[in-house]
């Protein structure tokens, strides 16, 4: 019998700080075993081994892919119509065929790595010219001033 028994870690070992993950694992195994033992009379071999290909879905709405039944037309309920409009836009955005890309994946990868290489050299350069930078920023500050929006920008 003892040969069949799995070696168990002692409590003292499991309580150690670096064994926390193992402890969780062992506890989960114990739990599983217990629940298996609890239901072992009810479960037969067939239930354990069968993997069903069927999913039961009791809702007609989900099966038939029905749309939401709350609609408004021609300004009857503007709030609702705005919501519907948003939804429609989102749906169209999603279902749109793949947008033609200006840059293909390969090019993207190439430029990305090229950029990374330059980025490293840039950081070194930056460090070198850090002091100059601060000076520059000071001189730039004038340009970065907050601009008051024009009056007619407000109402869109």
């Amino acid at each position, binding site marked *: 019998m003892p040969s069949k028994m799995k070696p168990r870690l002692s409590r003292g070992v499991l309580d150690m700080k670096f064994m926390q993950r193992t402890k969780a694992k062992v506890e989960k195994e114990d739990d599983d075993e217990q629940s298996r033992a609890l239901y072992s009379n009810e479960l037969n071999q067939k239930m354990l081994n069968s993997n069903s290909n069927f999913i*039961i879905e009791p809702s007609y*709405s989900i099966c*038939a892919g*029905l749309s*939401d039944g*709350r609609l408004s*037309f021609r300004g009857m309920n503007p709030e609702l119509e705005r*919501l519907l409009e948003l939804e429609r836009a989102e749906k169209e955005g999603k279902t749109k065929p793949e947008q033609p890309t200006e840059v293909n994946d390969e090019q993207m990868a190439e430029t990305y790595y090229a950029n990374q290489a330059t980025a490293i050299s840039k950081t070194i350069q930056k460090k070198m010219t850090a002091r100059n930078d601060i000076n520059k920023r000071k001189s730039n500050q004038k340009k970065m001033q907050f601009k008051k929006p024009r009056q007619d920008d407000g109402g869109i």
Partner: protein
Amino acid sequence: MSANTSIVMPGERVTSVEDVAKGKRIILGPGLRRVDDKVVASKAGPLRHKEPNTFWVDSYQRRYVPARGDLIIGIVKARAGDMYRVDIGSADTASISYLAFEAATKKNRPDLNPGDLLYARVLNANADIEPELVCVNSNGKHGKLGVLQDGFFFKCSLNLGRLLLRDSCPALAAIKDELPYEIAVGVNGRIWVKAHSTRETVGLANAIMTLEHAGYAEIDKICGNLGSVLQA
């Protein structure tokens, strides 16, 4: 029209579904059940299929059986502690917590009275427990859900509700051309409509009810005539 429409009858094995099930996972909708590894129909009606792997029986039905995720119209019946009892046409009355509304707190309860109409989503549905509703989406916004004010409410078969909600159904779009209106269709066979005047609202309700005995095929034809129904 044709008497030889292929329908399935209760107890019938649906081998066409079984064949598909051999290759991949399939979804069995209402009216189909699994007996060991056989698929058997439990209701009478045409077998429907939606790509890629959904099958169900489109039986005629007037009694609603709650299913999770359905959008339904309920009538508030009573207030019970921190719940409202809502009649949704099923065997059990449903319940909705007063916290299941937008911006509701323990202090700030929604103002609902018996007789109010709710457009709500079924959150929980199980044969063994009473169904539970919500009036907010997962972001805590009411979205399209909530109380339906004014308007006109009537009942119909569940099939009519489903018919109107198909993506390709031309009926609602056809009515749109006649008058501005607002509608809520519950898959529990309840419809609420609202137009600018009582006269228009009643006409609208009549127009929708004429579709009750229409098939998918006849709808286009009937939609052409909806204008005349609305005038009447």
